[in-house]
């Protein structure tokens, strides 16, 4: 199991990657990376209590029960990344506008989760 600081490094690396790519050009992968950034942010919090999520659903339950303030954003990211992974390209790009990937997904949902987690966790060593 990864440590809190290892989750933090993964989250930071994923988030930096989102700035390196043209997210709107590959919105499907961008949303997957955004979701996994959020996953590591949540696991950072959870590892602080020496716990780890067993799977996506159990992590969603953890967020719903213990961090309700970001449940809506986290569920959006989960759902959208699921659609990104399992939809055909045609279906995914019919369902989502590329233009909203940065404003809604990265600067909206993910930023809200990142800000919330930053308020809970101690500064990185």
């Amino acid at each position: 199991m990864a440590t809190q600081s290892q989750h933090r490094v993964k989250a930071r690396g994923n988030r930096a990657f989102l700035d390196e790519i043209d997210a709107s050009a590959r919105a499907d992968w961008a949303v997957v990376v955004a979701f996994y950034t959020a996953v590591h942010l949540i696991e950072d919090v959870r590892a602080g209590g020496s716990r780890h999520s067993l799977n996506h659903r159990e992590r969603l339950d953890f967020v719903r029960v213990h961090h309700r303030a970001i449940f809506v954003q986290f569920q959006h990211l989960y759902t959208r990344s699921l659609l990104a992974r399992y939809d055909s390209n045609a279906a995914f790009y019919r369902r989502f506008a590329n233009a909203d990937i940065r404003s809604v997904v990265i600067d909206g949902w993910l930023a809200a989760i990142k800000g919330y987690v930053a308020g809970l966790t101690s500064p990185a060593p």
Partner: protein
Amino acid sequence: MITANHSVIVLNRTSGQVTVEPEDEDRFVISAQEAVKACQDHQKADHAIRTFKQELFGPLWEWCFLHAARVKACFVPRTVGRLEVYVIGTSEQYDFAFGDDVARLELSLADRGWNVSAMQLPDGPDEDLLSYFNPEGAIQVYGDPESAPGQSPR
């Protein structure tokens, strides 16, 4: 809609009571038993199934009815694990505001002791919806029965 052999179980709601079309009752009980098993907070047979109908499907139907402009259909597939609720939107595009509502639906059900996962699926061809759940034996809580993936037009 694509013609196939899938058969959903259709719920009706009249006079505040959730009912199943008579010919679907047996299949409903089988499906509901599986769903009940998936709900850790509501276990055991007949009483649980009655509770399931009135306390889960009732509020679920009401929620769909209140959001009718954005809900095309709602399904609870047969499950071996956690209970899942799929809300099919009226739009082919993911509706962000509606997604907020679906997340709040899950929170609201959890507050009532129903540990379910609720997910918005934008409307689309059957093959898109079939990637996410199997309509065979699924309970259609809301919507036109013909909106089920794989249902033949009557």
